[in-house]
């Protein structure tokens, strides 16, 4: 994909408009165009062409401004939130929004870090690439313990769509045969470090309830659709011109473009979705052209809203009419509510004396994973919290970035920093967050951002269940590290951190009942039959695994459904 082939037209009625070009917008565009539909994809951010425009890719260390030190004066001014992300640096900066362009408000006493993509491709450019299916229990949890509304679908409904998407995004991983942690369509798994193999053997003996597996990652280990296997340069979010990790640019957009049915319009900020009370349908979208400032209207028979969880709710809440005074598709009143994010905490860390003489070549952009082992198939006797968590694990051979903090001046200090330090085993738990009505977003009509939208005000806070779960994470991490053979354990300091898993979801949830949910089992608005919301906003609960694959599978399934209705002339 080098340029937009088709020119967007305000005179034409598209078969579908896809709002957003990130993880799910790309999947929607691919699925709909492959079925023959004429699709207009609108993206607020600027164009970013694959494969030639990843300016930080393979940047030699000595070309990076300030040696990679955070440019704190600039970041405080323009990137106050985005710069907190692990994936933000001078070589990825061009992929993020500027916080100064679109600030957001927070309810006092709450602290949520909202990370956002500023280019075509959205956060698929900088995502962590961890790719897991939900288990069957995730779809029944709400019904079983009464938190949130029951999902309108079950694992069996989504399983074929997981397979469908996995086959083309490309997922490397190891099958484990666990019902609660379903296997997918995997390319061959990445190799483990020697220490990881050792830890795996020890856990099998001393903590046999724990599964320890190589991360399931949307990074290729085998060729796929013209994309190359990973070359292990290490810093994926800088962009990958060999298309080795899944992004809109590497995977879904080129296929959609190739059909000839896609028109991509970057720098097009959707303000609202237009509703026609005579037909009861959405007729198109109002867009602010970020280059000219002009307001344009594009028309379509079907709308896919994929602007990302918070922006999708923002657009709906901003699309008021006499028929929908509280925001479009919001007769239930749930739009903007039940925001969730994963209960993520880095936890106890272990130091290892094993494999001091073992090293590595290549930077593997992936860790290991311990799938959920708590409260599976019923409540564990020794837990005081509902649901569970998975743990992302990384073994890291420390280098000067860590060891520079030691005392010392001169040759001995230099030599200590030159050579590898000890191995550490770092763990980060991602826990399920219950859907709480009071967590969510509202709009402040008195202030507008650079895109002409009312500012979002966010209220996101964990509850008692999440706090109890964190206590269990610390205890279990201690058990795991002892079983794994750590010689020293650095405990979690228990400090409160901002909520920042970058897994925000909810706000336009699916459900069986139009009174308590916004979308049905096909991600279709209960109120407006030609409106589909298939990004993280649609989630009725959060599960505990990284969510992108589930969003993509839901999107492909909804697109298939919508295309069938389009073909029949229903939509």
């Amino acid at each position, binding site marked *: 994909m080098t340029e937009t082939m088709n020119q967007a037209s305000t005179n034409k009625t598209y078969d579908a408009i896809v709002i957003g070009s990130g993880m799910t917008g790309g999947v929607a565009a691919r699925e709909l165009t492959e079925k023959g539909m004429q699709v207009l994809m609108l993206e607020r951010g600027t164009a970013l062409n694959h*494969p*030639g*425009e*990843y*300016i*930080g*890719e393979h*940047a*030699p*260390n*000595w*070309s*990076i*401004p*300030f*040696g*990679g*030190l*955070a*440019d*704190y004066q600039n970041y405080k001014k323009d990137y106050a939130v985005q710069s907190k992300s*692990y994936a933000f640096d001078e070589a990825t900066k061009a992929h993020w929004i500027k916080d100064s362009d679109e600030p957001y408000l927070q309810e006092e006493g709450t602290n949520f870090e909202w990370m956002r993509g500023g280019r075509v491709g959205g956060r698929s450019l900088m995502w962590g690439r961890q790719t897991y299916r939900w288990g069957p229990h995730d779809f029944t949890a709400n019904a079983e313990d009464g938190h949130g509304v029951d999902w309108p679908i079950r694992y069996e409904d989504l399983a074929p769509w997981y397979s469908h998407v996995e086959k083309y995004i490309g997922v490397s991983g190891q099958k484990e045969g666990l019902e609660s942690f379903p296997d997918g369509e995997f390319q061959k798994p*990445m190799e*483990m470090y*020697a220490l990881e193999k050792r830890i795996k053997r020890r856990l099998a003996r001393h903590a046999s309830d724990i599964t320890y597996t190589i991360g399931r990652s949307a990074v290729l280990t085998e*060729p796929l659709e013209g994309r190359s*296997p*990973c*070359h*292990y*340069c*290490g*810093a994926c979010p800088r962009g990958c*011109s*060999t298309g080795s990790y899944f992004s809109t640019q590497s995977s879904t957009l080129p296929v959609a473009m190739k059909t000839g049915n896609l028109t991509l319009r970057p720098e097009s900020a959707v303000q609202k979705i237009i509703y026609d009370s005579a037909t009861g349908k959405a007729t198109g979208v109002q867009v602010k052209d970020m280059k000219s400032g002009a307001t344009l209207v594009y028309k379509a028979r079907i709308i896919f809203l994929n602007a990302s969880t918070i922006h999708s709710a923002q657009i709906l809440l901003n699309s008021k009419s006499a028929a929908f005074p509280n925001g479009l598709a919001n007769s239930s009143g749930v739009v903007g509510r039940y925001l969730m994010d994963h209960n993520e905490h880095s936890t106890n860390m272990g130091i290892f004396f094993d494999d*001091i*003489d073992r*090293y*590595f*070549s*290549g*930077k593997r952009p992936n860790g290991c994973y311990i799938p959920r082992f708590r409260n599976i198939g019923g409540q564990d006797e020794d837990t005081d919290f509902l649901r569970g968590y998975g743990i992302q694990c990384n073994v*890291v*051979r420390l*280098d*000067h*970035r*860590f060891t*520079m*903090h030691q005392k*010392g*001046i*001169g*040759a001995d200090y*230099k*030599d200590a*920093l*030159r*050579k*590898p330090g000890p191995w550490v085993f770092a763990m980060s738990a991602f826990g399920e967050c219950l859907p709480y009505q009071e967590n969510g977003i509202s709009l402040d009509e008195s202030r507008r951002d650079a895109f002409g939208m009312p500012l979002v005000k966010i209220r996101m806070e964990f509850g008692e269940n999440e706090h109890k779960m964190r206590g269990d994470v610390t205890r279990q991490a201690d058990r795991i590290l002892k079983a794994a053979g750590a010689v020293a354990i650095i405990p979690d300091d228990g400090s409160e951190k901002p909520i920042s898993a970058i897994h925000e979801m909810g706000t336009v949830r699916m459900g069986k009942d139009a009174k308590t949910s916004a979308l049905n089992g096909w991600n279709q608005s209960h109120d407006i039959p030609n409106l589909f919301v298939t990004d993280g906003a649609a989630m009725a609960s959060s599960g505990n695994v990284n969510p992108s694959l589930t969003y993509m599978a839901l999107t492909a399934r909804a697109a298939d459904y919508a295309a069938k209705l389009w073909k029949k002339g229903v939509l």
Partner: protein
Amino acid sequence: MAFNQGTAGMSFHRRDFLLAAAVTATGGAIMYSKGLAAMLADGDHSGHDMPMMDRPAFIDQAVSAFSTEKRAQVSAMAETLLPRTDTPGAIDAQVPKFLELLYDQWMAAPEKQLFDRGLAEVDKQAQAAHGKIFSDCDAEDQKAVLEKMEEEQGDHSWFNFGGASVADNQDNIPFMALFKEITVVGFFMSEVGAQQVLRYDMMPGAFDGDTSLGYDDSSWAAVPFM
């Protein structure tokens, strides 16, 4: 791959890189993209940001923020922290210039003041203990001055295992934390530091998690965990 692992004096031209990238191809599976190759080959980057791999090294910019005396003192201090041994030292890696660039472009006013106060204190302590300004002291005395400064300031949390970067937390950072961190970063992120002190391989092509490591082997140059 000629550019890997400590090729002395290697400068990084894009043609070398593209060639190297093509050589890296394992079984023809990894080829460098035609798009990026074309973009680099045309040499005209107007209208969009230039790929970092095709930019000059950060250190290659002109800078004139220090007096001759200040430059001499900063050079002596950087070399005292990371001296030339059997591998290059701070001066070989142009760290003094890196520090001058950071002073000029990166530090906010409070950090500039902290840096200047630190230099003044270093000279003051050198005078008091050895009767000379720092640059005029011999290497052993220079080391003693910085060690004493570090002892006086070393109870700050920067000196904790895994302490926070001075770029992320400017609260009450002592001079020695600022000086050590920016000197270490400038050194190991430099072309000389990455290739002749550490080991550098931009396009490994494969992952092997079980290679052997000798007692004296260096780390890989750092790549961010993303």
